[in-house]
């Protein structure tokens, strides 16, 4: 189930990143962490979803015929191999999503916990 939920998160990440930009990753992850039930592993699912989503986008880029030329240009400009750049991008998305979801989960508990009378 974790994997399927992560795929769902990933699809949402793809759409949001495409339409609005990178900053939607922590926002979506936080929302996911907030609304998922506590103890459900929301942070892991969000992180996996972000990696899958961004991974899909990177894979789409990599299938373009011009990617080889872009890769050598960008790799040289940033002085790192493009594959490392892609791994950094995945780690960036995954960590951002994990951290945001991880921080949002207790907030849900705080909001939904019965208040002392």
């Amino acid at each position, binding site marked *: 189930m974790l994997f399927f939920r992560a795929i769902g998160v990933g699809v949402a990440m*793809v759409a949001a*990143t*495409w339409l609005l*930009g*990178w*900053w939607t990753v*922590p926002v979506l992850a936080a929302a996911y962490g907030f609304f998922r039930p506590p103890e459900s592993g929301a*942070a892991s699912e969000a992180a996996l979803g972000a990696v899958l989503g*961004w991974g899909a*986008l*990177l894979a*789409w*880029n990599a299938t*373009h015929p*011009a*990617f080889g*030329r*872009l890769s*050598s*240009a*960008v*790799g*040289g*400009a*940033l002085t790192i191999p*493009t594959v490392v*750049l*892609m791994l*950094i*991008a995945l780690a*960036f*998305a995954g*960590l*951002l999503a*994990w*951290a*945001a979801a*991880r*921080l949002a989960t*207790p907030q849900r508990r705080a909001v939904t916990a019965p208040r002392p009378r």
Partner: protein
Amino acid sequence: MRSTRLGSVIALIVLAVLGYAGARPVGPLPPLGPLLDPANGILASVHSAELPPLSEGSIPGLQGPVSVTYDDRGVPHIFASNTDDAYRALGYVVARDRLFQIEMQTRAGGGTLTELVGEVALPLDQATRALGMPRSAEGRVADADTTTPTWRMASAYAAGVNAWRRQLSRRDYPLEYKLLGRAPYEYTVLEMQHLQNRMGYTLASSEDELRHVRAAALVGRAAADALFPTHAPIVEPLQPNGQSAPRRDPTVLPPPGTPDSTSVALLKAFGPVNLRVALGLPQRGPDAVGSNNWAVAPARSASGHALLAGDPHLELTLPSIWYEAHLVVPDSMDVYGVTIPGLPGIVIGFNRDVAWTFTNVGADVMDFYLETVDDPIGPTRYRLDGAWTPLERRVERFYAPDGTLMREDTMRYTHRGPLRRINEQWISHRWTVLETSAREPEVFDKAARARSATELLDHMAEQYFAPAQNMLAADRGGMIAVRSTGRYPVRAGNGRGDELRDGSVRTSDWIGYWPVSDYPQSFAPAQGFLASANQEPLDPKVQPRYMGTDWERPWRAIRINELLRENSAVTADDMRAYQTNPRSARADEFVPAFVNAARNGPPKPSLVRAGQLLADWDREYTTQNRSAVLFEAAMTNLSRLLWDELRQDDEAGTPAGPIPSDMMTAVLLTQPNHAWWNMRRTSSVETRDDILADALEAAYDDVVAQFGEPDTEAWNWSQHRTASINHFLRIASLSRRDIPMQGGSGTLNPSTGAGTHGASWRMVVELGPEIAAMATYPGGQSGHPASVRYDDRLAKWTAGQLDTLRVPRSEAEIPAAMRRARLMLSPTRN
């Protein structure tokens, strides 16, 4: 519970760190979020690498639809119903391929590069502002008549650039913006003026006014004047002088004299400074801007039609300084050629009747004045004809990319131009580029519509101001013509501009400009051809007045004229081949002297072997030849040994003087016992052959020590001279470096030490009933490093090959197989 809390703390730290690094630049890194974003960031740039087969766009103000067809070479053919629309579309398509270049170049001219790339550009921006370039551009725009065709044309072009920029999503920003973490800026008519100034800066010429002073401080005034003459002693001018070979004017070279005390004192006040270096003007070695152009009249062409070859040499950049385009407006304009991204109009090219091209004149159009000021630290007034005159003040502000103020400089201006403090002296300068009219774009619009070479050159003479260019034109009527066009100052007194002038009197001011009738020019010359190669354009016996001193050495001019004199049936392909002809007139001048000195010199094995190598050399700088490296080393040694008197005088502490060009060395070859051949520090008396033999022998030993025996590949010329085409940001992976090139010093494809300058656009046009043209430039049409069009022309350029240009009168004339893409432009709906 504790682990949950710890996890939350770690998550908070991770989110804070990545959130910050994602949104804000950290050190040299741009914000990581937009950069790494796979949908909009740097790797998503791959999707904009190539032109889509069919696309649409809109531009505000467009009066009708415009169709653009890109041919298989990536050249846009713009078909519009009126001229303004054609320029709107030109702005759009140039921005589509070169948006970052437009911003980079215009910011360089405006001194605002720091706002794009940060503090690293501060020295360059300061130099640009100190030269007064932004002030002059702003003044031109403020004073511009907005009802002129120029203004309309410039506004139309800017609208096209901005229409492309505005419809870009972040995903489609050029790669460089993503690397820098920036967004493209608004393009206005002011930016065009900045760019125009930048071109003037790029081609700024003339020798340093302190050159004579530095030489005279070591060897006396008479010797300095003779070593750095106003006129070239080897005469092969642009304006034909009726000679069938270069003329060598008798030159009396006084022996090295005693130091001139006035010069020594002046030099002490300035220190070992070069005014042009101090002002941040471009410094180039010989051959850096080695442009050539020539034309052949129908009587000397195989086809019976006029032929024209253009070969402007500039700094090599990726993307190229040029962008190729074709503009068609029925019954009004049909012009093909290259445009400078950011400026409307075809700068070099042809229409259905006329072809034209330029080389830099190199005239002296910038003078320096020694000013007297009221306060040596913060002056407010300067002395003029005995009275104190207020200085104009202007505060130059430099901003960082985030908009924060980085620095403020206070600039001062006299009535002549910017005032600068150099060591203890206050120097002002006047420069034609700062006084250019805002109407320059109109000049090229008129060129595009000219029906004859004469009409084109007359338009240019009337309106074109700076930088001065040798404009060569040929037409279908068989006319070939050239005129060195621009504005040349007339100075009072001896008329010379190569000396520091007294700023305290108005009599030092320019008193006008040359009349066009005095410009170097030739129309339908009897010899049947014309050639220019940055040489002194006028034969001093025809026109002795001062025009400048920074003439390129005559070797290229001699070689072109030699080729054109010996061929009375020139073909377009001959013209193409001449552009990379490897033979050197400079080697023709010096090799026999070296060989003779080796034969008559002492029988030392190195000298004998070196003499034999040069004797066997065909004097061609092909990539595989193994003698050019020896010859160049010998020439370096020769200069060092011959001009030893101009090297630093350690005892007096006088800094080294400037080194005369090898043209003066050639003059001395005919005077074997001249005092200059004798070396200052030896007790014996050396003659020409002693020095030549010593230079050659030492060169052979040095080259063998460095590269092994002459039969090794390390002696190949390709191992020593290469072209390096740098990206604007000097990023290695976006540059193309170490390209083996045919050509060397003094050849028609000259190479510089660093290989950073070279042929920027090679074009050959045959003006028959139908225009036929070939051309190429180093690079490609696209500024996108992932595009196949980024550097697809490099291979042919390197090999000296040209592409056949497609010049359709209508879209229907472009065969389907040769259509790469199509763009339909329409007016923006309100």
